[in-house]
Structure formats: C-alpha cells, structure tokens
C-alpha cells in the first residue's frame, strides 16, 4: 500500500510539508506528523461529499450543471465570484479569467480575514520574511491577536517559538516570547510575557509602543489596560533584540480599527528597523489564501475585490468586496468556489446568497451548497488534485495528488474551464 512522504497539508497557511500519508484502496488510512485538524482533514476527506452535480437540489449530469451555471453567469449584470482560498492556484487563475469574461467581480476570502493587512501594506509597505528566517534567527517573537495553538497548530514547533535553527540551536530557550490578546488564551502558557489588552484597544497600544521606540516619553499611566512600565520595558526589549518578529492574526484585522491596527504594527516594525532587525508576518488562515491574493495580483494588479464590469480591473475594498456587494443587495448572481460564505459572512450578506442564483464548486457539502441553485462537486486539491499553494509567507509549494477523485468528479480548474467554454459559446 502506497505511503506518500513529504505530503503538503492543505488546511492552514502553515502548509506543513512533512506529512506521511498511507493510502489503501483509494482511501486514506493513516496520517503521520499531521496536527489534529490535518489528520481530520485527510481521514475524513471522503465524508460529507457532494455526490452529484445538482440543480435546485436535484441530481443532474455535469454538462447540464455547467450549462446552467454559464447561463446564470452570462445573464447577470453584477455577478460575484468568491472564495478561492482553499483551492489551488490553477483554479484561482481560471476564476479570474471567468470574472473578466462575464464582467463580474472576483473577490477572495482575504477580504474578511487579512484584507486589512493588505490595505495597510498599500499605505505603508511591510517588513517581512519567510518563516525559516524566524526559525533561524528570531530571539524575540511576539504573537499579537493570534492563537496558533488553535488555528496554526504546528506553527510554534516548526517555524517559531520552539523551532531550532541556524542561530537558535537552543530553540525555545534562545527566545523571549510575548503574547498579546484581549483574553487569556492558552498562549499564556507558552509566553514569557502575556499582555492582556482591552478589546478594541490594540491601536492605542501599538501607537504608544511606537512613540516610545521613537524616543518619546509616555504621559499616561496605562494604555488600553497595559501599564506604562510594561510598555516601556517591552519597547526596550524590542530595540535590544537581535532579530524580532511579530506574528499577528484576526485579533487585529477583525477588531475595531481593522487596517489601521495593522498600519500601527507595520509602522512600529519599520521604526524598529532603525535599531535592529524586525519583521511582521500575518498568520494567514486558509491554506491558499495567500495564493488567491498572489495570483489575483499578478493577473490584475490587485489582490482581491476586483471588479471587471468596465472591461478592465478596478479595485476598491468596501465597494467590490463580497460582504458589501451581498449586504447591499448588489450582486445578482454568485459563483462560490471552495468556501462557505453562507456560514461565515454576516447574516444579511449570507441571506442575499440565498435570494440570488448561486453556484457552488466544492468537494463537500456546506451551508452554501445547501442554499444554492447549482452545486458541482469537485476534487479535493492536495488530496485528489495537484496544483500550487502559497504558504502564509508567500512560499509556493506543490500540492500532491494522492488518489483519484470519485468517478466523474473534476478538479475546480477543469470545471471552471468548462464553464468558461460554455460562456464563450
């Protein structure tokens, strides 16, 4: 029975590539090195599958579903294509081509996770590095508004706090680790210093740190619940580190301040580079959300929220983003690829998906597939189909095909090609 080594895990932005997967009778029977979620993903990939192409819940032939999808998209005035963070780059490229063809909007889930990170980058830039640079060099690591123990389970051991590398042979003991969050998560046990910041107070705390790093005093006793002394000490520690890294998550992007929180962090890190080496790395959630941004950027110039209604790409988050288009009732048809917005977007936006003709491409059943006009099952990328995925730090890795998809089920990219052909017909 085949054992695949160095398998890449298509779950989170860590894209761990050291898994060993045993396949027996076209079924995964054993997963080594995977985290709990990864193991669950591989072992249960065959469950809850969409078994047939569906139109209004009734099984149809693939050709028929493709035709219906093309019909819907062709006749729409404001079609939205959304998702794309949990599929491979070939599918993302095809989705953009289709959006261009139908004069639609193509957005990916970055718009509701690290979109603000990109907005901030577009204002200020960003000092970052690949994860191995942190592994090899960082003697100060700060986790801000993120909890890798829940969302990026092997991050700490493979890439950051515990990892051993070129100049960090001692691993955890060669480092000082700080966690900042609005509540005491399990990261408190990992960190040397845990800072509890008032909800919605990150911007002030980051700004204060920045002012202190710039050499100003602090006229207040505390900022966002963190005492002045602690702020002064942390600023000093940052300046004195040899290589510092801040990892941050949705605790900064989805809370009050959004992109401005990230701007404050980017500015802080830029200023710290006058004293030492410092980097900032977003903890990207879905395994290929970085790829969705990357491909969209090289094809259109913009990372997400791209509108082709006038024949050329335009970009404006808040205007062309999925939540806004849906909640305002603007989108009149939707194609959802490898994502479940009906379960995750604010209710008003989710509701709109149920009102308009929605098409879903997904290996598995989801809330969205259950409210959609057309459902087309696809092969699971990284298990039944190969392709590229970009790790949270931008490293492209090849996903492996471990087995055949169910009979008649095609990868996302191929289904999208069929829809494109049908639209052009």
């Amino acid at each position: 029975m085949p054992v695949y080594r160095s398998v890449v895990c298509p779950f989170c932005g860590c894209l761990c590539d050291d898994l060993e997967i045993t396949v027996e009778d076209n079924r995964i029977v054993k997963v080594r090195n995977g985290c709990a979620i990864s193991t669950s993903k591989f072992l249960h990939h065959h469950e809850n599958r969409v078994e047939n192409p569906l139109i209004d819940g009734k099984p149809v032939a693939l050709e028929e579903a493709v035709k219906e999808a093309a019909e819907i998209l062709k006749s729409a005035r404001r079609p939205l294509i959304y998702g794309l963070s949990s599929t491979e780059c070939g599918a993302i490229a095809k989705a953009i081509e289709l959006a261009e063809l139908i004069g639609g909007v193509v957005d990916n889930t970055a718009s509701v996770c690290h979109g603000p990170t990109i907005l901030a980058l577009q204002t200020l830039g960003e000092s970052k590095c690949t994860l191995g640079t942190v592994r090899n060099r960082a003697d100060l690591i700060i986790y801000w508004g993120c909890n890798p123990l829940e969302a990026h389970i092997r991050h700490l051991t493979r890439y950051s706090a515990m990892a051993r590398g070129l100049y960090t042979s001692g691993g955890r003991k060669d480092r000082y680790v700080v966690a900042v969050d609005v509540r005491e998560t399990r990261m408190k046990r990992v960190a040397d210093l845990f800072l509890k910041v008032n909800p919605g107070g990150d911007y002030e705390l980051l700004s204060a740190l920045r002012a202190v790093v710039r050499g100003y005093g602090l006229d207040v006793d505390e900022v966002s619940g963190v005492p002045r002394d602690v702020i002064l000490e942390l600023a000093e520690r940052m300046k004195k580190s040899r290589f510092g890294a801040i990892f941050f998550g949705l605790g900064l992007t989805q809370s009050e301040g959004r992109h401005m929180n990230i701007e404050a962090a980017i500015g802080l890190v830029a200023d710290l580079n006058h004293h030492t080496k410092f980097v900032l790395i977003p903890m990207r959630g879905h395994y290929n959300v970085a790829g969705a941004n990357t491909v969209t950027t090289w094809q259109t110039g913009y990372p997400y929220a791209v509108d082709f209604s006038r024949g050329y790409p335009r970009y404006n988050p808040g205007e062309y983003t999925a939540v806004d288009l849906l909640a305002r009732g603007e989108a009149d048809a939707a194609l959802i690829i490898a994502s479940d917005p009906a379960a995750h977007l604010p209710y008003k936006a989710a509701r709109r998906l149920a009102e308009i003709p929605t098409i879903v491409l997904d290996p598995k059943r989801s809330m969205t597939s259950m409210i959609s006009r057309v459902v087309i099952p696809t092969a699971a990328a990284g298990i039944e189909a190969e392709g590229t995925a970009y790790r949270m730090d931008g490293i492209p890795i090849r996903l492996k095909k471990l087995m055949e998809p169910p009979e008649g089920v095609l990868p996302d990219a191929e289904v999208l090609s069929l829809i494109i052909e049908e639209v052009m017909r």
Partner: protein
Amino acid sequence: MMELRLKPKVSGLSIPLEAEVISPDVIAGKTLREVEELRVYHGNRAERLGEYFEVEGEVAAEPGEQLIVVEGDVSWVKYIGAGMTAGKVVVKGDAGMHLGSKMSGGEIIVEGSVGDWAGAEMTGGLIRIGGDAGDLLGAAYRGSPEGMRGGCIFVEGSAGYETGTGMRRGLIVIGGDAAPFTGAHMNGGVIFILGRAAKRLGAQMKGNGSLIICLGEVEELLPTFVYDTTYTPTFMRIYLKTLSEKLGIKRAEEYIGRPFRRYRGDRAVGGDGEILVVERG
C-alpha cells in the same frame, strides 16, 4: 448659468449606476439629444443616460456656465461630478459613492446624504452636503499617499470613518459628528468638527500645518497626542468668521474668543500636527 434638469426615471436600483457623465465638463457643449446618449454603466452593461433620466433644460457652451440639477434621490448613482473642473451640480436628494471625487473646480450641492468616498482626492472646488457623508470623505484612495489636496467640503450632518485621510491641503467642515480616524495621515489642511469627535482623531498625522479643530466634545485622544497649552488663537476668529459668512454656519461665531486646548502629535509617527479642542463652558 444654464440649467439642465435630470429627472430620475427609476428609483432605488440595487445595482448602482456609474454616471461620471453627470458633470458640467461632459455635458456643456452637447445637445440634449447627445446628453441622453451619454454612456452610463449599470453593472456590466453600458447604457444610455436617457434610459435612467429624463433630460430637459438648457445646455451651456462652457462648463463654467453649466448648472445640472438632479431632481430626486439618486443614492444609486455613483461618480456624480467626479473629476469636474467648473460649473455646478445640484442633487435634490441623496447621492451615491464617489460624488465629486477628484474634482478640481466648480461646486456640488447635495441636499441629502452622500455615499462613501465623496470628494476623494479632490484638488479644488466646493462640495456642500446637506445630510450625512459616508466613510472616507475627502480621503485618499487606497494606496495613494495623498487625499484631498485643495477645495472645501462642508457636511451639515455627520461624517463617516477616515474622513480626510491623507489630506494635504483644503478644508473639511463637519457640522455633526465625526467617526473614528478622522484626519488620519493628515499632512496639511484643516478639518473642523462641530459635533462630537470620535476616538483616534488625527491618527498618524504628520504635521505640515495639519490642523483639526474640535468645537464639540471629543471622545478620547490617542495617547500619542500630547497636551501643549491652552490659548486663544488669533487665526481662529478669521476661520470662524469665514465659516459663518462663506458657508453660512452661523453658530461658528459663538466660538469666537473662546480658549482652545492644543495637543500635538501624532508622536507615533514623530508628527507635529495640531488638534485644538474648545474649552467647555
């Protein structure tokens, strides 16, 4: 001025119409027939202006002589007056996003409220909004280092998030409340807030004479703004008189002679902008 009237034939479109052609620069010199034929965009379809509006009145030879009156609610129309250089547009209701964005001259009067990005990156001219403004009023578009670079915006009601982001020159007057991050990245220009100013005012403000003047209550200032002094600035009289006389904000005169607390910042960016907060009482 020659008056051209646009009467909406539809209301409350869920897919907004993009009509940057509703601008004196485009309309002046055309016949009514040609105006009806102007291209507007509804989703991915290019259509005629005449399908959405009844066009009547007179067309001027020069943009400076052209008055366009939009008679009714057009919150579903984007880009009204965008890029205009002269003339006047009056909207007798609400207007959609990007109203007067990148305009360099002329005047836009909206009796109702406007959507996001009104007056974004404008360099000259006047926008008067009778109701509320959306987010990013007079702001920089994403990625641009500079927002409003000249001209004046007056909102009678409240203004949304990030008003005046990246502002370089010009004047924004908010009659009502200002949402968070008003004047972020400001690097010149003046913002008056007559209502309540929400927190994070002037975040990452650089200096270059940037000035935010709060005549109402201030929710909270960033810890990176530092109290400097309390004084009665002499220039304030001139400003307040101008607001009263030129923009018709009579209540501004009540503040003449009042002392202001001055804060400087944003130290997070080593900035030297000023926030002036009127002393209560």
